């Protein structure tokens, strides 16, 4: 039986209170949201925080809404909220695609959007989805709020731009006209982490791709992203030839390793095929040909 190491527990009553507690207890304190990454790590003693600060009472951070030209997702929105959100689906179907294959329905009742991206597991699906849509992350500390653009948020496996005494409060995604998005994942069985997954977001002006994002999970792509594939596509026509060239670049630019989920060359193959499929679906959606 796996049991976490001894730990102190406190509850935060507000964002300010959570930050004050983080400052008081220092680097050995950790926020706990859904706990569905942190508790398994504590059971394995891969994490041994001295103090847990429970932020589940911060229900005012559980929103998903449109504000001006942005989709705003509060850090305490659960996976299930994002899966079922009509407003998120209207502008970014990529999130429903991804949420349908993240963990399982019971885990999705608890796991939060904030916890997911702050965990920064190299296989985290939402990190790839947010890389594809170029989301901005809102980080709060006692000295105020700062906004970190997506590529600067993930510093490497399990490390993010969130520093000591700081917490993530919100994810912002610009709403772009003529935009289509999709997420494709291959998993060994329902509820498992990705063997490989790819998200694509495409903005069209007629047949020209004006902006594009390609996000990859589980293949050690830098910042969960293929800048090479994006460069090939941006400014060019939305054609099969272009998609094939971008997919090849995405596969080449990632750095998968062999593990129990599959050999590296298979994952690289998946990166290419899934990039192609995600681009086709995102484009069909941008053209209004597919829901």
């Amino acid at each position: 039986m796996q049991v976490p190491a001894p730990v102190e527990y406190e509850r935060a009553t507000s964002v300010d209170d959570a930050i004050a507690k983080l400052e008081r207890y220092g680097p050995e304190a950790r926020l706990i949201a859904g706990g569905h990454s942190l508790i398994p790590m504590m059971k394995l003693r891969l994490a041994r925080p001295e103090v847990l600060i429970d932020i589940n009472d911060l229900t005012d951070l559980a929103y998903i809404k449109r504000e001006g030209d942005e989709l705003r997702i509060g850090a305490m929105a659960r996976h299930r909220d994002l899966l079922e959100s009509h407003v998120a689906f209207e502008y970014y179907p990529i999130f429903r695609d991804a949420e349908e294959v993240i963990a399982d329905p019971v885990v999705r009742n608890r796991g939060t959007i904030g916890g997911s991206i702050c965990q920064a597991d190299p296989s985290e699906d939402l990190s790839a989805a947010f890389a594809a849509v170029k989301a901005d992350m809102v980080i709060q500390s006692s000295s105020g709020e700062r906004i970190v653009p997506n590529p600067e948020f993930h510093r490497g496996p399990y490390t993010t731009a969130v520093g000591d005494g700081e917490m993530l409060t919100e994810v912002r995604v610009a709403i772009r006209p003529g935009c289509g998005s999709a997420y494709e994942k291959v998993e060994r069985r329902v509820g498992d982490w990705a063997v490989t997954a790819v998200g694509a977001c495409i903005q069209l002006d007629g047949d020209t791709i004006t902006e594009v994002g390609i996000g990859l999970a589980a293949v050690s792509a830098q910042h969960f992203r293929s800048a090479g594939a994006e460069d090939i596509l941006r400014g060019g026509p939305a054609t099969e030839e272009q998609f094939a060239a971008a997919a090849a670049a995405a596969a080449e630019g990632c750095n998968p390793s062999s593990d129990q989920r599959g050999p590296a060359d298979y994952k690289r193959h998946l990166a290419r095929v899934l990039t192609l499929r995600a681009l086709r679906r995102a484009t069909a959606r941008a053209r209004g040909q597919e829901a």
Partner: protein
Amino acid sequence: MQVTMTVNGKEVTRDVEPRLLLVHFIRDELGLTGTHWGCDTSNCGACVLWMDGEPVKSCTVLTPMAAGREIRTVEDLEQDGVLDPIQQGFVSQHGLQCGFCTPGMMMTCRHLLDHNPDPSEHEIRVAISGQICRCTGYENIVRSVRWAAEHTTSEEVSA
């Protein structure tokens, strides 16, 4: 630390270590052994109970996180000697063999039926996709849930 929560409608208070997992609190502190514990990896779903009306894996919740919340376990399905239709469904459709997965399955499926009274086979399979049954091959579990969808009034427990 002292924690107080409502379990199956009754308030309980206990002194616990904050690291105690909710599944062990429910089983070992409260003696409600209907909730099972089957893995260390949050994968099997034997431990599913409701917290504030939502099915959760209680092996992945720390006991103090449940303080002030409402917990409902499988023991609360039967009321005054009358089985819940979901229980009756598992009985009549042979939805269990060893019964290890059954409490978690029933808690998830009761919640499904409360929100979707007429689920398709696919919807049932999605709902239980985070839970593992080693015995039935799931077929009879799906039938049990369908049975419960079609028989919404409880029947007397037949001994």
